[in-house]
């Protein structure tokens, strides 16, 4: 087979190539080192007594019996830790009018949700600490729990926390004007009330932390399963009054994060104080039950939305009211308002609609705090838009694909701006839709659906277009006063044997960040991938940076690595030119060897250059500068966000007798800009889709009227498992961003963004012959049987 040579045929051409993860072998061999594995000399273990009430006043705490238990070294209350730790408040300045009550590691007078840590025990072993927790006696006075979003907003409602004027955390309105008139005059209006269940991340590795305060030097080292070591270095420093330079945060191997491990948790803050009080390392690893009642939850939105269309099926306007329930306070430091804010700003984003009105209410409740989790707000915005569009298609008499073809922003209409103020550089909705229809065999599936319906087999086809926000600039957090970096930094250096190390501020939680950074560095330098080692996750080692969240790893981290590697390459070639008495521009690097740029003839190896630079600098001319380490920072400066886009398709079969849905197949066509590693992009898509299908069919944190989580175990909270998941086929369209040399935009959230919306549309398509519908996820068998009138 002869095919034309492409850029990928160039030696060391790794950008765009499926390279398997170098760390996968180590992790599969059981050689991963997670915080849980860490054993330090003199290390103690913490366990927490947790509130049995969703809302209560602490009347009295008796810890005497616990202090006398075997192995117990310290029993600490809120008052003990409040002497060390400054309180935190989860608001951002650019969310006008936002309010929240200050938080301490452990409460002084009031518990705000069932499961909140109240008293800490530090003992020689976790088992001894847990035994002692059972010996603590607390007298609580139960207070009314706020658990319903409508009652919470009623006049005179009980408040979720003392100190709140009412239960409204944040309120926001968008209005382009004239909406009521447009709806009054529209040929078609569709409307629906959507319910999106609360769910949580359920990482394989739970939250884990070892804090090690060395009082001799006033130095704090925290081994922390987190995505954002620099953010926590800053927080531990400021809240515990330790100079930043004496706080080190190390994030070793991490078993999944999905946004959940970048928030401040009370236990984590407490553990730092416990180490300071005991002068010994203190470890806390959340068990699964603790994870359910203390990891952030997400979603929990009720959206009332309507869409106006003209008689040809062109969207004229949307009108949206989103009420979202958060915890009893706003999460620190990124708040609990970002999800709702993204919902109301992303609705309608793929379409040419110009008129829009939205109202967002973020409401306090006595439940676990909510905050950013994979694809923040996207699945809600996507489901609302895409379901209304399917309802409109039925009303107008168009096929779902056709109504999208009519309304999508054309690929040649960019750059443009959404009615909510997002500026899009270049998206590819039309190409993606066309590609999806081909991959699905869309027309054939519709024919098959009709044939099977006649035989009593009810299949449904759903599609959902999405826009994903990635690579946020300082406009996201920095402008609001949070010390969360929008830039990243890398040090790239040649070792004496001619290998390359890249120390970079973006982090790895299993998605392959280190792999793509290694690919980019090797590609740009012209050396084999195997000779690049990437080091992440240690504030003492890597430059300061925002780390990995909001799909920053490839777009911002990748560009940082690329620019750093280019500077190092220039230094290497300049030094090689000096040694070879040649001109740098006449040389290039290939497979770790400096070669003649024209003939490819080998001139000198990188190892030899390094040997000379490090050990025989005496042989270099006096003006030669051997700079074989480069430190470089990069911050996005063009568009405030790099938007990505794509479309998903879902094919399901509904058992109308049982209400069970079999997901037959799922398709994704995505445009993440430049693809660095197709294998890893596909993995991100599949993983994201599975999380989205989990939300669509399985996952939901259920609370009773008293504010108790009733399904906080892996037997009761259903995560999607392999047997229920379909084959997921993935296609790519590449529209690189012109804001960077690399052109990558990010791909971590695209799968989750639209999977539940595509599934919702597919199930409703299957339900259509029965004249019924569903507008709530997860779509459980009970809800589907009710919709079908079977129970």
């Amino acid at each position: 087979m002869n095919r034309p040579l492409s850029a990928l045929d160039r030696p060391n051409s790794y950008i765009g190539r499926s390279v398997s993860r170098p760390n996968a072998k180590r992790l599969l061999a059981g050689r991963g080192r997670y915080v849980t594995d860490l054993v330090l000399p003199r290390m103690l273990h913490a366990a927490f007594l947790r509130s049995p009430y969703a809302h209560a006043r602490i009347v009295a705490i008796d810890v005497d019996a616990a202090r006398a238990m075997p192995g117990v070294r310290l029993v600490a209350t809120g008052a003990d830790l409040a002497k060390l730790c400054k309180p935190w408040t989860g608001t951002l300045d650019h969310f006008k009018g936002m309010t929240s009550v200050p938080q301490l590691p452990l409460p002084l007078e009031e518990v705000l949700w069932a499961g909140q840590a109240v008293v800490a025990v530090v003992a020689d072993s976790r088992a001894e600490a847990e035994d002692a927790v059972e010996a603590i006696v607390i007298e609580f006075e139960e207070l009314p729990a706020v658990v319903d979003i409508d009652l919470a907003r009623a006049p005179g409602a009980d408040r979720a926390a003392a100190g709140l004027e009412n239960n409204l955390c944040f309120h926001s309105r968008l209005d382009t004007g004239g909406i009521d008139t447009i709806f009054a005059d529209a040929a078609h209006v569709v409307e629906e009330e959507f319910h999106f269940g609360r769910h949580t991340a359920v990482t394989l590795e739970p939250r884990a932390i070892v804090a090690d305060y060395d009082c001799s030097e006033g130095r704090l080292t925290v081994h922390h399963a987190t995505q954002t070591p620099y953010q926590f270095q800053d927080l531990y420093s400021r809240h515990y009054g330790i100079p930043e330079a004496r706080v080190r945060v190390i994030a070793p191997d991490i078993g999944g994060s999905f946004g959940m491990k970048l928030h401040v948790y009370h236990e984590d803050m407490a553990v730092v104080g416990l180490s300071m009080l005991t002068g010994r390392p203190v470890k806390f690893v959340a068990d699964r039950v603790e994870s359910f009642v203390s990891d952030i939850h997400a979603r929990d939105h009720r959206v009332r939305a309507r869409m106006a269309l003209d008689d040809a099926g062109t969207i004229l306007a949307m009108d949206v009211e989103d009420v979202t329930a958060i915890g009893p306070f706003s999460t620190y430091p990124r708040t609990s308002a970002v999800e709702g804010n993204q919902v109301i700003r992303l609705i309608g984003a793929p379409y040419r609609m110009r008129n829009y009105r939205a109202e967002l209410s973020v409401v306090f409740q006595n439940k676990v705090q909510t905050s950013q989790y994979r694809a923040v707000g996207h699945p809600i915005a996507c489901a609302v838009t895409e379901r209304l569009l399917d309802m409109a298609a039925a009303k107008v008499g168009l096929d779902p694909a056709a109504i999208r073809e009519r309304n999508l922003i054309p690929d040649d209409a960019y750059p443009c701006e959404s009615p909510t103020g997002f500026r899009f550089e270049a998206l590819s909705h039309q190409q993606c839709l066309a590609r999806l229809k081909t991959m699905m065999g869309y027309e054939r599936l519709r024919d098959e659906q009709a044939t099977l319906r006649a035989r009593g087999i009810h299949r449904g086809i759903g599609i959902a277009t999405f826009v994903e926000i990635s690579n946020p600039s300082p406009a996201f957090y920095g402008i609001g006063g949070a010390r969360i970096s929008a830039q990243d930094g890398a040090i790239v250096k040649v070792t004496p044997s001619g290998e390359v190390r890249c120390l970079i501020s973006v982090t790895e939680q299993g998605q392959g960040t280190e792999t793509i950074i290694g690919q980019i560095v090797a590609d740009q330098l012209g050396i084999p991938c195997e000779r690049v080692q990437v080091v992440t996750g240690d504030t003492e080692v890597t430059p300061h940076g925002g780390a990995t969240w909001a799909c920053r790893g490839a777009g911002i981290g990748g560009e940082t690595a690329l620019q750093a590697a280019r500077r190092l390459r220039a230094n290497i070639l300049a030094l090689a030119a000096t040694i070879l008495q040649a001109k740098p521009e006449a040389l290039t690097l290939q497979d770790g060897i400096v070669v003649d740029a024209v003939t490819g003839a080998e001139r000198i190896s990188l190892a030899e250059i390094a040997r000379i630079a490090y050990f025989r600098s005496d042989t270099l001319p006096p003006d030669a500068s051997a700079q074989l380490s480069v430190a470089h920072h990069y911050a996005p400066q063009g568009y405030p966000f790099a938007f990505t886009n794509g479309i998903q398709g879902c094919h399901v079969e509904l058992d109308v007798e049982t209400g069970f849905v079999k997901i037959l197949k799922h398709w994704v066509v995505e445009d993440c800009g430049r693809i660095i590693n197709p294998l890893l992009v596909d993995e991100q898509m599949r993983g994201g889709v599975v999380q989205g299908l989990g939300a669509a069919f399985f996952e939901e944190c259920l609370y009773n009227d008293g504010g108790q989580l009733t399904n906080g175990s892996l037997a009761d909270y259903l995560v999607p498992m392999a047997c229920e998941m379909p084959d997921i086929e993935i296609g790519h369209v590449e529209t690189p961003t012109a804001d960077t040399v690399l052109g990558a935009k990010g791909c971590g959230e695209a799968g989750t963004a639209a999977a539940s919306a595509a599934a919702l549309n597919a199930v409703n398509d299957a339900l259509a012959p029965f004249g019924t519908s569903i507008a709530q996820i997860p779509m459980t068998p009970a809800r589907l049987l009710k919709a079908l009138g079977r129970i």
Partner: protein
Amino acid sequence: MPALALRLQAPERLIDIAHIPDLRGIDLRDGWLRLGALTRHAEAHDHPLIAAHAPLLALAAPHVAHPAIRNRGTLGGSVALADPASEFPAMMLAMGAEMEIAGLQGTRRVPADEFFQDLYQTALEPGELLVALHVPAAGPQHRCAFDEIARRRGDYALVGCGVMLTAPAREVESARIAFFSVGPTPIRALAAEAALTGRRLDGEAIRLAQAALSQDLDPPDDEQVPAAMRLHLARVLIGRLLGRIAEGP
């Protein structure tokens, strides 16, 4: 084990019975299959004697949790715990098995119909140990079917059922039907059995058996799975199982 992990139980002593040879072994004798209490779930899945003479166990085994658990879990453990949502206790009921119980006063045999008494309550007295399960060996005159409706493969079912019909010819001579996940214990569907007995297994008989379930089952009501839903699913399930038997192998 989960109860220990959750600190719900804190017994002073735990006795490891895993290495008592008398609790192992599978033999066929005098028309009865004797299964040692330590017979693994995985053996129920694979063992040729079980496949031939206790086919309901073999059909149920793949639905019990996951392979790692099936390699460790034992039939005796499952039956003695008597989790009302478990497959094996209900299959003991469907097969008309007898439990061999050893105590200081010797051994006794208790029929499955008397063994499961209430939620996690069995005929086992303090100081007694379940040592073996005796199953009447099925033969060519028996027709059986098993299935369950679970949210995910390996989960506790919303409802599950084992059916064992004695039907040497066209008519059902006798029937044993046991449900799980529908009440505090595994439950025999006596009215449904009666509806089938002496009848040819056709659409009408199946409808009668489905209708009879409202006399047999009174499932618990919870927010996630309303009682009406469990009863509805039980009807769907029994209909499908009997239909499967009627269609033949």
